């Protein structure tokens, strides 16, 4: 059944469609067609030198599940996310709470903590690589140790995680500070009158009132961590023995698709990644409904 549109509604519809068209075409060509093509490619075997695709069904997925390298990269990526997200957010929360008051130098601190956020990750990674250097690095000199921070597989992943946390602190802190400033002051006043301790107000007012923002940060943080790409291979050599213990899934995707030109396999890896991120996003949103306090 068609409703008759007035002339005004018709012009509105016309303009709406005209204005949304560039974005719509862009999304279809640059994003939605690629999703379909990636899924199709993941079902194909790519010929030598990346030429020619033969449909093989789920072969690439079966290979990926059997491939110890894929398994290892998954473990590395999860390990990175599980360590960096909670630690990073806890430190940022402490900093945000400390900064959430009238004080001298607030802008100064904010500017400094935010600094890594505006730097090319490649540059940041290069400096840390130099500081981690075993023979001449600043860290070994300062601690008087002789540890191969980025050559020893058992500590290398922690060293990468440290850089990840360091880089993201300021960004999370600024978001949390924004959330803290939205909490009405009278809640704290009432708590003070009731004689609540600082500890109590933090867990009974600050955390619940901040929970929507905390969840947002946890969610974007986990998704961001699962898509880690540049830090590991810039901090250490890809030829290093330790690299296999930090190589993330996106690097494996890049390597398979663009260095070995094995696009079908690369596409399968990225589809698996998409599914995992999808499941995690869904799970987090279910938890959000349970735990987050909305005013």
């Amino acid at each position, binding site marked *: 059944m068609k409703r008759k549109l007035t002339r005004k*509604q018709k*012009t*509105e*519809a016309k*303009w*709406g469609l005209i*204005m*949304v068209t*560039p*974005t*719509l075409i*862009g*999304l279809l060509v*640059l*994003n939605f*067609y*690629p*999703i379909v*093509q990636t899924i199709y*490619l993941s079902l194909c075997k790519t010929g030598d030198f990346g030429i020619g695709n033969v449909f093989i069904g789920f072969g690439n997925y079966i290979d990926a599940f059997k491939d110890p390298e894929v398994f290892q990269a998954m473990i590395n990526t999860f390990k990175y996310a599980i360590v960096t997200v909670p630690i990073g957010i806890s430190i940022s929360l402490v900093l945000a709470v400390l900064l959430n008051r009238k*004080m001298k*130098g607030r802008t100064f*601190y904010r*500017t*400094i*903590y935010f*600094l*890594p956020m*505006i*730097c*090319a990750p490649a*540059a940041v990674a*290069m*400096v*840390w690589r*130099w500081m981690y*250097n075993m023979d*001449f690095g600043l860290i070994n*000199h300062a601690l008087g140790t002789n540890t191969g921070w980025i050559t020893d597989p058992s500590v290398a992943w922690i060293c990468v995680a440290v850089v990840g946390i*360091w880089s993201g602190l300021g*960004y999370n802190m*600024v*978001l949390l500070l*924004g959330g803290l400033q939205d909490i009405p002051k009278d809640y704290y006043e009432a708590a003070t009158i009731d004689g609540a301790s600082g500890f109590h107000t933090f867990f009974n007012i600050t955390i619940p009132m901040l929970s929507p923002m905390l969840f947002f940060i946890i969610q*974007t943080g986990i*998704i961001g961590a699962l*898509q880690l*790409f*540049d830090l590991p291979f*810039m901090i250490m050599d890809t030829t290093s023995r330790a690299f296999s213990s930090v190589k993330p899934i*996106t690097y494996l*995707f*890049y390597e398979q698709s*663009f260095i070995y030109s094995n*696009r079908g396999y690369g*596409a399968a890896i990225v*589809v698996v*990644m*998409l599914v995992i991120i999808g499941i995690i*996003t869904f799970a987090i949103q279910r938890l959000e409904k349970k735990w987050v306090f909305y005013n």
Partner: protein
Amino acid sequence: MGYQTKTRITALVIHGILICGAIIMMIPFIWMVLTAFKTRGQSISVDPFYIFPNGSWQFGNFSQVWNSYNFLTLYFNTLLMILLRVIFACLTATMAGYALGRLNFPFKRLIFALVLIQMMVPSQIFIIPQYLMVSGLGMLNTQFALLFPGMVTAFGTYLLKQGYQTLPKELEEAAEIDGCNIWQRFYKIMMPLARSSMVSLGIFTALFAYKDMMWPMIVCTNSSATTLAAALAKLQGQFTSNYPQLMAGAVMAVIPMLMIYLFFQKQFVEGIATSGGKL
């Protein structure tokens, strides 16, 4: 202990913690700059705390890296990519955001659903087909390749839709009574009011483009066509352990964005705090 002394001690402790944190944040930057002015021998000398390089500061590292990597071209490529991406993102997103936020038209909900889906999908999934398209057009190693995935933005469309929705509708109604058509209402009245969302989007787009490594590494393998971020990976491959030269390259890559940040510090931080981007 009096109330005043107690608050003063608390303030001191807080400043102490924050200053320690600030030092930790700054050390890598300080170390980067100091190393960039040393000779190779000085950089691996026994005492790394011998901070001021013997005699004078070395500028040679900068000129060597500058010449062997043609940083002028890298700056130009990066700047042009950022400008084009910001212009494209702001133009397409402001129109689509206005349409989705304030107009009624067929398939509006479906189109908005597409925007949301694109935001939720990790961008790596688009990369192989996008690469195949660029290479099919014969545009690898060009400025077009660098712009290509940034021509439209789902995140920006969403951000601006939110921005337009919060504007009061009376303004638009008044303009309508005065005889403005939809385009005039959008262009003359609403768009200037959504400026702060557009500034946020511009900052995000610029930062994202500047930091992105994977895409330029894939489509611009030629070092005269690539961006600063991707060139650093090559630099590291070439100068492997010549840290003073690597650090000189890193300093040169970081400085432009750092200057912009220090100038527009407030917009950067507030843009992110108010809209919570997806960087």
